[in-house]
């Protein structure tokens, strides 16, 4: 376990941030028409669900969501080898002509989003794809930028940003920990 942790967002702050992100997504899309939220496995899926319920509360519209597991689209199979757990991809909606918002917990190198864009392309041709992340920690290795950001944090390479969601982690929080 890391020896030092610092809390970036506690549960209440995280909730506020997600509600603000929901507003920004609706604003970005000029409403909720044709909107589809796609969460990236694993914690992006839970964050997408929170955003959807927040939009529902404000707009009275149930925005469709999907889940994307990008494991099979990674570019590091040759080097790192197979990941032990491949999650489910669940995109029951036709994406053609839709406005897809990719939702992920932390944006770092951009490689996950690159893989997600490749995978989405195999499901159809959305009108537009945008990116919403709870935390942007910088350190990009690819030309990828978020459209909606919950919070930008400055962290070193030897630090890790962990997003905890109550569905999986028993509490909501964003913490910075030392990398082992």
């Amino acid at each position, binding site marked *: 376990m890391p020896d030092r942790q610092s809390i970036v967002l506690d549960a209440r702050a995280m909730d506020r941030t997600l509600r603000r992100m929901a507003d920004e997504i609706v604003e970005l899309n000029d409403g909720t028409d044709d909107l589809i939220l796609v969460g990236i496995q694993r914690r992006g899926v839970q964050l997408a669900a929170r955003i959807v319920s927040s939009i529902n509360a404000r707009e009275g519209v149930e925005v469709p969501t999907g889940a994307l*597991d990008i494991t*099979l*689209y*990674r*570019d*590091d*199979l*040759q*080097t*790192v*080898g*197979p990941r*032990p*757990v*491949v*999650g*489910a*991809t*669940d995109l029951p909606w036709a994406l053609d002509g839709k406005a897809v918002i990719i939702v992920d917990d*932390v*944006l*770092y*190198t951009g*490689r*996950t989003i690159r*893989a997600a864009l*490749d*995978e989405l392309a*195999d*499901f*159809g041709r959305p009108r537009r794809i945008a990116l919403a992340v709870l935390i942007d*920690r910088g*350190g990009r290795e690819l030309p990828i930028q978020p459209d909606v950001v919950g919070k930008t944090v400055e962290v070193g*390479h030897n630090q890790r940003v962990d997003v905890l969601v109550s569905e999986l982690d028993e509490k909501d929080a964003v913490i910075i920990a030392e990398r082992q």
Partner: protein
Amino acid sequence: MSVGPLGKDLLGLEPLSADQIRLILDTAEPFKEISERTIKKVPTLRGKTIVNLFFEASTRTRVSFEFAQKRLSADTVNVAASGSSVSKGETLVDTARNLEAMRIDMVVIRHGASGAAQFLAERIESNVINAGDGTHEHPTQGLLDMLTLRDHFGKIEGLKVCICGDVLHSRVARSNIWGLKKLGADVAVCGPRSLLPNAIDAFGVTVFDRIEDAIQWADALNVLRLQLERMQRGYIPSLREYNRVFGVSRERLARAPRDVLILHPGPMNRGVEIDSDVADGPQSVILNQVTNGVAVRMAVLYLLSGGRPELAEAAKGGQR
């Protein structure tokens, strides 16, 4: 070369741990979805070259492996023994060396001799997947049978599965027995004693001499194909009698205390080991097995691929 969570090769289920088998089955789950997509392809094994080396004809298994490979974007070459240098008397060791010289990543081998897959695996660096070796093992068939059982019953543990027919000559039976037992199923076999190994007790399975008793006991029957040559070589007197005594019929199933699930690795001899109305009936999951075959093989290909520790070190930091 690469050593993933299954090791270098998949030669059988006997050498695998329960966790490794569960990992394959769990990994196969998300792969099912890929076959339901419009574009049935993910880039995972892009640039990998795989040879399907089939010394015995098997359309079903070869096609299933080929779909699995293509849906993972691997480049594949099929080598059938009849059209290759093998028929010119080339030995398996020479074949192996030639494949190695062509720098392939994986070999899927089907061979008539027990141990052929291991023989190959010990002599080449590429990953080797056993697609059936003699009367030894057929691990991907065992895995797809288990996935089909798990889909239906939700779990393998405690399940009563009876393997029916020519266990003596069946690699499918061996892989099923090892795999199911490792995951905690109760396994039985049923067939004429002349088609059961003399040392069947060593497998830790129950033996039923009468198919009626097996049906009374079982949650599921895995009905093996009866090779017609078994009759020619005198193991059983006739196919007719085999069907009368051991055939899985609707009448026999109707007397079971519960709905017994019916599996068959194919190809079927309708009217011999299984009657058509059973094979096509509501308790049959024979086509689910075929569908699951692709997913299981994708999982195995994925889990055996990639992973070079020295490169992993260089790429430290991973993806985020």
